[in-house]
């Protein structure tokens, strides 16, 4: 059998799952766990890069799992968008894995405060999370997408409540209930889709859904959207996120912030382009995008804790991606994809740096921090670069993404699009305000005496190096902004024309 790039596709899911099993078995040997999950995630990163190359330069990759025909079995599909998401998500997961290993917590660490939770379950759960995220990206089947969601949700439940402290149980309760609700909405929507079309294969649905009556399409689209919007933390359904994320250990918050909401955004992009082309709900999405941006960033400005502030900026910047999707032209989609890539990296980096601050000073509260620029210049530099990047200071990648979005909005040219342009500029300014507030309080003013009893530990190379790596990766998005933007342009063009995806899946029916 000749080698084809398609054969690599299942590995991005299977390898982390195998790794999860191995690390459970090796639960008592921390070093073995680290070696296994490090090797597995490194190879998944490598595979993702190969997939990106293949999907971009050759063709859309497809795998029919178990050799079942398209309508009965599950199809895995990797096009440019999926491959790009795979690359970023695995790089981020890998960096977080290194970071958490670098903190050097042993499995009998009793410290409940900052993630010194029972370590034996951390690595397996992180690997399951990675497998779940990859599943949603490569899935070409609506129900399989749901299963991927559940995989990553369960892993996230466990990670969020690590250690079972009072605060984490409280936050976990809200998180669990809200996410279960969104899953129920999603799974009911899938049942309705099946009842209306007789299939859950995305490529088949792309053919059959446009043939349905307009009202049926509207019901299906809105139900799927509600499910995904809750997961992506878009404004009216966003309150669960800043409530739950900040309580988790720093590496966990970092990986959540990077990946979980973006999985929702990815699903929205896929659904809006492939299943429901046309601009049926675009205006509604634009209004939601506007409210998400503005309400989110106003929440961030009011916070007195860096982790909470960052959680609110996370909500706010989801609005940018939704903006690109709602505008719906190729330029908008391309900018939205670029923004997703940028935001996954930057938001994760910021949370990791906040973890460094917490390690160093034992707190992330803005009222208790001060003078970090003097006492910890390296941390300050590591914070400054992604913070400016998030605010969209030229020439960093945040600026590139935002300019792309503004151009796409102007191209669309409706009054609502111009409102969104104004909203995104204001949000960008307020982000800069929020970031400079953190900077002038935690980093600039005179050093504050650490509180008695605050937990401090020395920074080791193991935690600093992965953070530096991610900061550099973020700068790489700027340095290679041109080629990257070309890839997202091509990805957006294939999404818009739709036929490439459909023929890649259905066209090979008769092939052996």
């Amino acid at each position, binding site marked *: 059998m000749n080698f084809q790039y398609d054969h690599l596709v299942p590995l991005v899911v299977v390898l982390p799952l195998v790794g999860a099993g191995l690390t459970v078995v090796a639960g008592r040997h921390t070093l073995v766990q680290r070696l296994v999950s490090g090797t597995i995630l490194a190879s998944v990163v490598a595979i993702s890069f190969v997939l990106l190359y293949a999907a971009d330069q050759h063709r859309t990759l497809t795998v029919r799992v178990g050799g079942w025909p398209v309508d009965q079995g599950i199809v895995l599909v990797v096009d440019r968008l999926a491959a790009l998401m795979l690359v970023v998500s695995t790089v981020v997961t890998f960096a977080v894995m290194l970071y958490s290993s670098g903190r050097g917590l042993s499995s009998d660490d009793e410290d409940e405060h900052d993630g010194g939770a029972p370590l034996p379950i951390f690595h397996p759960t992180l690997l399951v999370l990675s497998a779940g995220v990859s599943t949603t990206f490569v899935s070409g089947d609506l129900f399989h997408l749901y299963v991927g969601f559940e995989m990553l949700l369960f892993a996230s439940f466990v990670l969020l409540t690590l250690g079972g402290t*009072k605060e984490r149980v409280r936050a976990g309760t809200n998180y669990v209930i809200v996410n279960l609700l969104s899953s129920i909405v999603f799974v*009911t929507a899938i049942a309705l889709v099946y009842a209306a079309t007789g299939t859950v294969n995305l490529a088949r649905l792309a053919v059959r859904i446009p043939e349905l009556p307009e009202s049926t399409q509207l019901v299906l689209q809105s139900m799927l959207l509600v499910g995904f919007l809750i997961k992506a933390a878009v404004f009216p359904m966003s309150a669960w996120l800043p409530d739950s994320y*900040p309580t988790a250990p720093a590496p966990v918050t970092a990986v959540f912030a990077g990946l979980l909401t973006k999985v929702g955004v990815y699903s929205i992009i896929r659904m809006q382009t492939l299943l429901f082309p046309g601009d049926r709900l675009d205006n509604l999405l634009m209004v939601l995008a506007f409210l998400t941006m503005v309400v989110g960033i106003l929440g961030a400005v009011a916070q007195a804790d860096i982790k*909470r502030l960052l959680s609110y900026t996370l909500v706010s910047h989801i609005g940018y991606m939704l903006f690109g999707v709602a505008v719906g032209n190729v330029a908008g989609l391309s900018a939205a994809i670029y923004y997703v890539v940028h935001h996954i990296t930057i938001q994760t980096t910021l949370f990791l740096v906040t973890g460094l601050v917490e390690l160093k000073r034992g707190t992330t509260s803005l009222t208790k921090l001060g003078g970090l620029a003097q006492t910890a210049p390296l941390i300050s530099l590591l914070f400054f670069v992604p913070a400016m990047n998030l605010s969209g200071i030229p020439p960093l990648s945040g600026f590139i993404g935002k300019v792309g979005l503004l151009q796409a909005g102007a191209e669309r040219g409706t009054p609502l699009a111009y409102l969104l342009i104004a909203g995104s500029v204001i949000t960008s300014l307020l982000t800069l305000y929020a970031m400079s507030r953190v900077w002038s309080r935690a980093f600039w*003013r005179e050093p504050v005496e650490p509180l008695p009893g605050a937990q401090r530990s020395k920074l080791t190379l193991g935690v600093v190096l992965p953070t530096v790596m991610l900061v550099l990766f973020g700068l790489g998005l700027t340095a290679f902004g041109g080629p990257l933007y070309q890839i997202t342009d091509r990805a957006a063009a294939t999404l818009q024309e739709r036929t490439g995806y459909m023929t890649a899946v259905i066209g090979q029916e008769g092939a052996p």
Partner: protein
Amino acid sequence: MSPSLALALLAGVLFGTGVVLLLSRSLVRSLLGVILMSNGANVVYLIASGRAGRAPIVDGKTTPPIGEGGIADPLPQAMVLTAIVITLAVTAFTLALAHRAFELRSSDLIEDDVEGRRAHDRAVANDLSDSDYRDTSDPYSVDSKETDVPHTEELGPAPAEGVSR
């Protein structure tokens, strides 16, 4: 395909009762709501699979028709099975969470977010002690903070005076 009215009504009742329970502050009640709604979703799959038929076992040579007189549609059944298994796992995890919450606080009522509550209380009391506009001369000076504002307010989770939580 004409769906069964009884099944549709059943799904509606399950969803309705589920929503009512979910609105409760008690975690166990919310969990019961989630379970009822999940079962409602499973019933929707039964409706989606169309008419009942024989067991969907095929010999691989002939493909019998799906629906009346033929076999039942096997695909939704596979999906419902998956959904049921997931609901089981959800139930187990949430019960463990409720038990842990009960251990920690002797109640399983869902609490408010303390930080969010504090921001809200400060806004209601118009308390600017933590804002950037508290002291226009030098907002970040540690000295001005010690003279202007009592320290206790910043250390504990206590809100501004006069506001009950």
